[in-house]
């Protein structure tokens, strides 16, 4: 633990999203405000909210206030200074200063980048209109504002194309269906959700999606957006074209690294951190803007794991982040789906598979060195909780692999009458079957008499039904 000093250190966190907000909560839980003056910059005007539930707000299943994690009062009550609505525009590492766009300049002893990410748009021609802005009818899906824009434009569109057949792309396609346009989905590789699914399950998913009225085009690498001022179609690298009125680009995320890059930090795909989430002396990064052992994570579980490690590190505890085990569970187009870990086999892997094509059910385990390395459940996800435990905890797997897919009943076992004399019937009072038989032989013909005489059934009473069977 850090000794409490008279002069508190200044900790500045840039970003108040899923990573920054969580870090703040973890720090408060560890009593970090005893050692640090903590200031947090957030672009948005309010406190922190749960971004992953945004789509539920959009589809009306949740009220906006129900996704708030920490309102403004929380920061004040916990002695955190939140610069809400102020974007950091520069970091001066020489003088350890952070500068905001509303005139705030803060000195830091320790700085954390939690700047998150934004929608990634792969390089393609024709993104912009002649005046430089993004062409009308071209969208990304990241914020509440994006969602509202898509919904509005879709009202007058005949055909919408979603670029990207991953999680986000499928979600966008589903959303567009609600607004009446004909929806096409184009994907660069030959399998939908290729990060989570294998060929077979990808095909199952494609069939389901197409049944719902979405036209799927695989192996289509988008080269250009056609149209002068607004999108009129897409051109692909194989020379084909597809006309449309609007395009939603859902090709993943790109880390917000500009601020860090201008500050002169080491950047690859994102800000490079070590196992302590450290970038260099006094500077750390966490969340979607951080790259750890070559990986940049875009799911909430890894980000919160990182926040926990960083909070430990900042409060003087020993902690290390060694990467996250990835798992997703969701409903895509009414199809329930769970996927975890590495779902594509490697030489030497043990594969356990079950499929019912007609009913759209597919289950697959990838077992490596006796442990669950990956799994897919499609159509029937009831075993997700169990499999996730085997996957997360790397527990030894049951010899009977099928029990990981199905509830297998146990044998009927001995019936009461067949119990040997030395078998214990009443555990609370240690009464054997023989003792009960002897008691009945001596004339006890009612359960109450057997209980009074042997004390069986007078504890928890769970053997009473067995006592009746002896009598019956």
């Amino acid at each position: 633990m850090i000794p409490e000093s008279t002069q508190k250190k200044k900790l500045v966190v840039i970003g108040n999203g899923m990573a920054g907000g969580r870090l703040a909560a973890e720090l408060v839980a560890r009593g970090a405000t005893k050692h640090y003056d903590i200031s947090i910059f957030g672009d948005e005007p309010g406190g922190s909210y749960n971004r992953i539930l945004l789509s539920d707000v959009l589809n009306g299943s949740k009220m906006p206030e129900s996704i708030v994690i920490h309102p403004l009062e929380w920061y004040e009550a916990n002695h955190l200074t939140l610069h809400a609505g102020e974007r950091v525009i520069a970091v001066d590492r020489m003088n350890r200063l952070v500068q905001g766009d509303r005139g705030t300049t803060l000195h830091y002893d320790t700085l954390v980048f939690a700047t998150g990410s934004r929608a990634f748009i792969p390089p393609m021609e024709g993104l912009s209109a002649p005046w430089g802005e993004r062409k009308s009818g071209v969208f990304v899906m990241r914020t509440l504002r994006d969602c509202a824009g898509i919904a509005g434009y879709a009202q007058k569109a005949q055909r919408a194309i979603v670029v990207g057949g991953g999680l986000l792309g499928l979600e966008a396609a589903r959303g567009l269906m609600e607004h009446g346009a004909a929806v096409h989905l184009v994907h660069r590789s030959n399998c939908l959700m290729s990060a989570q699914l294998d060929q077979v399950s990808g095909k199952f998913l494609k069939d389901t999606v197409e049944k719902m009225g979405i036209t799927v085009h695989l192996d289509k690498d988008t080269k250009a957006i056609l149209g002068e001022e607004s999108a009129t179609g897409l051109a692909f690298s194989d020379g084909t074209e597809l006309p449309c009125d609007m395009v939603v680009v859902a090709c993943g995320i790109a880390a917000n690294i500009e601020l860090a890059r201008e500050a002169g930090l080491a950047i690859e795909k994102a800000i490079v951190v070590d196992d302590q989430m450290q970038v260099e002396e006094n500077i750390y990064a966490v969340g979607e803007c951080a790259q750890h052992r070559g990986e940049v994570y875009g799911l909430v579980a890894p980000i919160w794991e990182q926040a926990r490690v960083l909070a430990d590190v900042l409060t003087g505890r020993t902690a290390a982040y060694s990467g996250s085990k990835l798992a997703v569970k969701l409903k895509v187009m009414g199809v329930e789906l769970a996927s975890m870990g590495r779902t594509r086999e490697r030489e030497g892997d043990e594969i356990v598979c079950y499929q019912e094509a007609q009913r759209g059910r597919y289950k697959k385990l990838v077992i490596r060195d006796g442990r669950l390395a990956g799994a897919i459940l499609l159509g029937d996800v009831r075993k997700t909780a169990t499999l996730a435990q085997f996957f997360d905890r790397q527990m030894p797997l049951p010899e009977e692999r099928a029990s990981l897919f199905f509830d297998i009943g146990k044998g009927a076992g001995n019936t009461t009458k067949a119990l040997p004399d030395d078998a214990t019937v009443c555990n609370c009072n240690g009464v054997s079957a023989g003792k009960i038989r002897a008691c009945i032989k001596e004339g006890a013909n009612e359960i109450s008499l057997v209980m009074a005489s042997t004390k069986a059934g007078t504890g928890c009473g769970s053997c009473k039904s067995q006592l009746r069977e002896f009598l019956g």
Partner: protein
Amino acid sequence: MSQPKTATHCPYCAMQCGMNLTQHEGNWVVEARDFPTNRGGMCRKGWTSVALLESPQRLTSPLLRREKDAPLQSVSWDEALDFIVGKVEQIQDKWGRDAVGVFGGGGLTNEKAYLLGKFARVVLKTANIDYNGRFCMASAAAAGNKAFGIDRGLPFPMQDIAQADAVLLIGSNIAETMPPIMQWFEKLRENGGKLIVVDPRATPTAQNADYHLQITPGTDLVLANGLLHIAIEEGLLDEAFIATRTTDFECARRAVASYWPARVERITGVDEANLRDVTRLLARANSMFLTARGAEQHANGTETVLGFINLALGLGKAGKFYNGYGCLTGQGNGQGGREHGQKADQLPGYRKIENETHRREVAAHWGISPDELPRAGKSAYELLDSMGEADGLRALFVMGSNVAVSSPSAGKIRRKLAALELLVVSDLFLSETAELADVVLPATQWAEEQGTMTNLEGRVLLRNQAKTPPEGVWSDAQFLNALAKRWGQGERIPSEPRVIFDELRRVTKGALADYSGITYERITQNKGVFWPCRAGYDDTPRLFHDRFAHPDGRARFHDVQFFGLPEEPDTEYPFFFTTGRVMSQYQSGTQTRRIPELNAMSGPPFVELHPDLALEMGISEGDMVRVTSRRGSATGCAKISDGIRADTLFMPFHWGGHHSANLLTIPALDPTSKMPEFKVCAAKIEKATEVERDS
């Protein structure tokens, strides 16, 4: 020929089953007694409890160790008491008053718990008194006080359980730990009610339930928050109840916003369909939420309990018939023991030692000035850990507790106990703690003295004396009185139970736990009296029907979040290690391990593990195995069971020596209740070597 019968209660758990003691051909026997709680039922521990009355292992003379390396030798009471007085004076002169500590127990009668608190503060004048209830239900107590403004185990008589429609039982194996209570659950199910058990192991209780939520060890709070999240999402809240009978719902709503079902499913291992079914079931009609040590003995135990209280309040299941949150207290007088001042921060009647009004009230009764009354002392584990440290304890009195077995990180605590300048232990037998003592005092057993106990319902019961103690054995009250006399304060520390109880009644008058209307006669007549009970008024079987105990009459929601376990499995210590009890042993086993019939039932100390893990480790049933954590190792026989997860090891904590589960446990404390994390730490397992197998 009919023998006289003595109506009393079982010496063990908080169920305090009513029983009669009588003699048959010169031997003591237990007979069934129709009492409203157990209705004649008892478990093996109760039926065999008389075996200890004539035990040849009984201590019948004080023992004294004159120098640290000398053996314990029989001495007279005078010599033992003079030795204690001399040492205490020497230590307090040199190190200050607070260098002498007192450690009590949840098995002591109300009279003794009260007297011990008074003795520590008035005679020894030390702030440092605490008790093993910190190792028991302190987290539930803290949560009850925060949420409801009062802490009474159950806010209703246990027979109400039979009338509920659903009971969520969290971290409790009552089919083994208090079997006779199961009759009420059996009735519940006959009436069509459902029992839902939350436990990482498929215990006998879980196996007989309608739903068993087999959670990842230590993730109880995630489950609680997840169920409330679903209740909000599915519109199952009782909005009217929240509006009229509670405050601070918004902070609970925000707390659970981050516990969406898929996340909760992954952390807890309970599938989403079950999470939803259980939430709907609990929301439907009359529901009870009962926690025990599995939920409470965590470094976040208080918050975990608050999470379940949030759920109960959100669904509107409190403060009305056949609904509510309750704690299934563990120790015989775990409830009364925490009300009458053997807790570091408390004074009799559940008064608070840091509350100036409360200090004045109690000081006036005790005939001292409020300034003379010490302030709050250290909590149980902190107290034990301070032994031999700067500003820590140099001397300790232990009554009704076996801390060398029951404390977390027990190896370290054993070394510290042995190094004290003075360790005084009062017990029936030479317990593992007594073996380390400088002075051992032989104490009376339950059937050899009179006194009251408060069971898990808050029902005050009377134990009557059936036999005279053996020659040389004194009750704790007698020995405290004799010590006080040596310091010229004998009149302040009475030795007669009835006199002490009458004083307790006067002192608690007007306090939260008001016993002023309770008398031995009233207890006998009414088969127990529920506190609070003011003189001249009815008792209180059911709390909260009109109002909760906070000044505004409302229950409070709390913002409770899960921030992980103090120690997670890693590559070096890859498994969860969890502890608990078995049916035929009780607590540290000082009593039950001396009854051959119970030992035959429980078998030797064991470590439970899953067959898939056993197969991989090459361990067979009955093999001697060693489990090790960062704090120590213990050995036991392998017991292979598919009722446990393949990443979890379970060991009961009833045994001493190198079979103590608490050699491994982690002393991470709950910040509010100071409850240690007994239920989860990281450990490894291996086959024991030949040497260990022989020892």
